[in-house]
């Protein structure tokens, strides 16, 4: 009796498995056949409507011929027309007409309806499509979704609003900035990217949003976004105001705004404002100060940056070494000072950068320079580099065709051994 029960269970399981295998097999085959037909049809339809729509656009009577493009929602024709229109909207000359057509053909209302769905993915897909269609009429509905609980919906809404553009969208995002920053990393990132997409238009709103704002986290984010937008005097003023903030993150972001290279042309005094922050107690502020001064370029920067070669933080040391390399000849004395010192870490950082950027090649060339001082300093640096094990440029020069006198000098310095 018991055996029979077991046999029945096993046989039933085998039968079920067999059925499932057959079902999966048939579904796979059916799906392939179905998709093949569907996509072939879609390709044909896309090709046809691409031609037709382009002709209508060229003739200028797109809106009068729109009845040709009406299709049943979600049918293959509907999808093909949508695909073609979405590719046409990326061409700026057609943008206005195509946007109107999307609305006239019912795409906008269809996707707006999707926004009401409880399914996050359906809603997000609708949001995404409305953004791609640049549907200005849908902006209020998209704005309403900025307050949604789901970070995925908020992120897609922000992104779509940035694609549509316009003051209302921009203002709505900026107004909700503090809430979005608090909500999740995902919405914060989406917001940052979206505001960047608005370009210079976002600047006045961001600067205004700062007014009455005592949340330093929000200020820091505003400054961060401003640093990625085109340079603007309003941004510079705001950043300068926060250089002395109590919050290191804010100071660092303010430096980032000021360090935009274009600012150098507009305001010659900016590096002077930044220089004191090279002595900031927080390492990433010092790091950003070096970067900003390097981007702006400043004649008197070599000496204070040189002091950071011995910084306790390796990122700051490396950044300082790189900045000094960019500053070139005016840094030679600083290099020499540090290389003659006792800080091995700092010495190695400089040697590494000198070699990596091929500055060592310039130093070797300097060995035949008429300027006696330049020659001596370069030789000294090369000697120290050799003593620290950074001899590859020396050896490489000896192995290639080059100036005999220079080769002699290199051989001598390599024979004499460590100097430092």
């Amino acid at each position: 009796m018991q055996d029979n029960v077991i046999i029945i269970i096993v046989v039933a399981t085998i039968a079920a498995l067999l059925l499932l295998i057959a079902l999966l097999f048939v579904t796979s085959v059916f799906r392939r056949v179905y998709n093949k037909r569907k996509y072939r049809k879609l390709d044909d339809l896309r090709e046809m409507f691409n031609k037709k729509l382009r002709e209508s656009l060229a003739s200028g009577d797109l809106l009068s011929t729109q009845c040709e493009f009406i299709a049943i929602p979600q049918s293959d024709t509907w999808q093909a027309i949508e695909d073609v229109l979405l590719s046409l909207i990326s061409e700026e000359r057609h943008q206005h007409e195509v946007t109107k057509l999307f609305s006239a053909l019912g795409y906008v209302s269809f996707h707006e309806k999707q926004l009401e769905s409880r399914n996050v993915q359906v809603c997000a897909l609708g949001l995404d499509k409305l953004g791609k269609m640049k549907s200005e009429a849908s902006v209020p509905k998209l704005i309403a979704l900025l307050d949604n609980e789901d970070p995925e919906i908020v992120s897609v809404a922000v992104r779509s609003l940035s694609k549509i553009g316009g003051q209302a969208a921009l203002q709505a995002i900026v107004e909700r900035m503090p809430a979005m920053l608090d909500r999740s990393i995902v919405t914060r990132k989406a917001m940052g990217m979206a505001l960047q997409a608005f370009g210079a238009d976002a600047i006045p709103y961001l600067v205004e949003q700062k007014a009455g704002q005592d949340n330093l986290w929000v200020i820091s984010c505003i400054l961060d976004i401003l640093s990625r937008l085109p340079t603007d005097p309003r941004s510079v003023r705001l950043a300068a105001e926060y250089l002395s903030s109590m919050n290191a993150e804010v100071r660092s972001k303010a430096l980032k705004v000021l360090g935009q290279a274009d600012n150098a042309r507009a305001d010659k005094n900016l590096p002077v404002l930044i220089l004191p922050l090279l002595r900031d107690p927080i390492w990433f502020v010092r790091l950003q100060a070096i970067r900003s001064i390097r981007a702006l370029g400043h004649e008197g920067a070599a000496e204070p940056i040189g002091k950071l070669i011995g910084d306790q933080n390796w990122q700051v040391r490396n950044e300082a070494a790189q900045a000094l390399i960019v500053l070139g000849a005016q840094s030679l004395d600083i290099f020499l000072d540090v290389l003659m010192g006792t800080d091995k870490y700092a010495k190695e950082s400089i040697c590494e950068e000198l070699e990596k950027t091929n500055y060592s090649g310039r130093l070797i060339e300097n060995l035949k320079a008429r300027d006696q001082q330049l020659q001596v300093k370069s030789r000294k640096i090369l000697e120290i580099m050799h003593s620290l094990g950074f001899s590859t440029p020396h050896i490489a020069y000896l192995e290639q065709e080059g100036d005999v006198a220079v080769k002699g000098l290199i051989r001598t310095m390599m024979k004499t051994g460590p100097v430092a």
Partner: protein
Amino acid sequence: MKTILAALILFFNYFIGVYFGILNTIYLVLLTVALFVILRHLERIKYSTRKEFHTSPETPPVTILIPMHNEERVILRSIRSALASEYPFFEVIVINDGSTDGTMQKVIDTFRLKRIDRVYRMFLATKPVKGFYYNLETPNLLVIDKENGGKSDALNCGINISRSPYFCSVDADSLLEKDALIRIMVPLLESNVPVVASGGVVRIINGLRLSDDGITIQEINLPDKTLLLFQIVEYLRGFLFGRVGWDSLRALLILSGTFSLFQKATVVEAGGFKVGNVSEDMEMIVRIHRHMLKKGKPYRIRFVSDPICWTEAPDNIKMLGRQRRRWHLGLIQSIFQNKEMMFNPQFGRIGMVVVPYYILFEILGPVIEVLGYLFVIISYAIGILSVDFLILFLILAIFYGVFLSTASIFLEELTFRRYPKWGHLFKLLLYGVLENFGYRQLNSVWRFQALIQFLCGIKKWEHVHKKGTEAHTKVATNE
């Protein structure tokens, strides 16, 4: 005496029945979960932010680490494909782990590298570095030449020199798809919880036709060799439902070392890759779990099903056996080196569910399977198992195996469809059936051998020789 023996055998038979019943139920759960997760993932891709991350300042720099040891036939493809990645900020660090063939020279000559002096700071202890090679024309490529110390040692060396917050380990015989890096990064960028490691899909390169540049896939074909076809079905099963399923249950314990992304700080904090382990990737993941759970910090380890890295699979039994023994030995080592997690509530679901699962079903599975075959024969010999039962259970086991393989191929059909021809579909389905007759059993024997190796204290890294796929490239060009 005979009665006691018969009772014992009967008990063991029931035990096997229950054991495989539980195991197959777990597989069914994973399969079902994977189906829903993959479908959801595919829907999300439609409105994904992937393209926007290309230009976003939020996208962090990544270092691609490629350890190499005697890989002269395949290394250039791997480096070139890594350099061709479409990603905003990345560097490629190739670590020559004491190759004794022409690998190093080939890389130096091809990329016209020059020796450069670099400061090498050992955050993680490694074998001595002999030199660094660099070319200003390819500023994001650095080659390190070091003494042989194994893959883990080479990876640690790369970590020491890398300056990015994330690194991606890629095998020297692999071909990374151009968008693989950004795709593997997206879940990390979209996550509210720090993602400390994530893995992508590894597929078999054998059979692929590459174009003249050697890194662009011209045509995807299935290889001719039976052994490779079995492995393709196996990889589909392993990646498309195994890892997707475990990932969605937040219980991922394996990421393939062929293509995985790690947060550098976490790996360094956890002590880097363990030298001496034959499967450094898995041990690292288990240790990261242990480290993060001990610290009580929120974290995620993710598997992403759309970034793809193609890799070479062994095409003969000897090499495949070596590879599988090594993998299983690595699994056993990783679990036992972190055994404090076993049934330890401090380690949450990893300690209470995942580690016990791996011990009971993955490590002991082959033992039970092999013993099961023996006991079935004994049961039949002493007359306590009827032929009907024997045949029925055999059919059940085979059908279940076929079902899992068919379901994996169905998942592939449903999602990525990398094997587009009708012939591919039927061939894969056929091999999904055939693998149950011999190949699966052979795998169990290799895994059983690995367990014996572990018990005997054998820890050797069984090297799998790579043939390279230059032939495929030539065919493509000639045609």
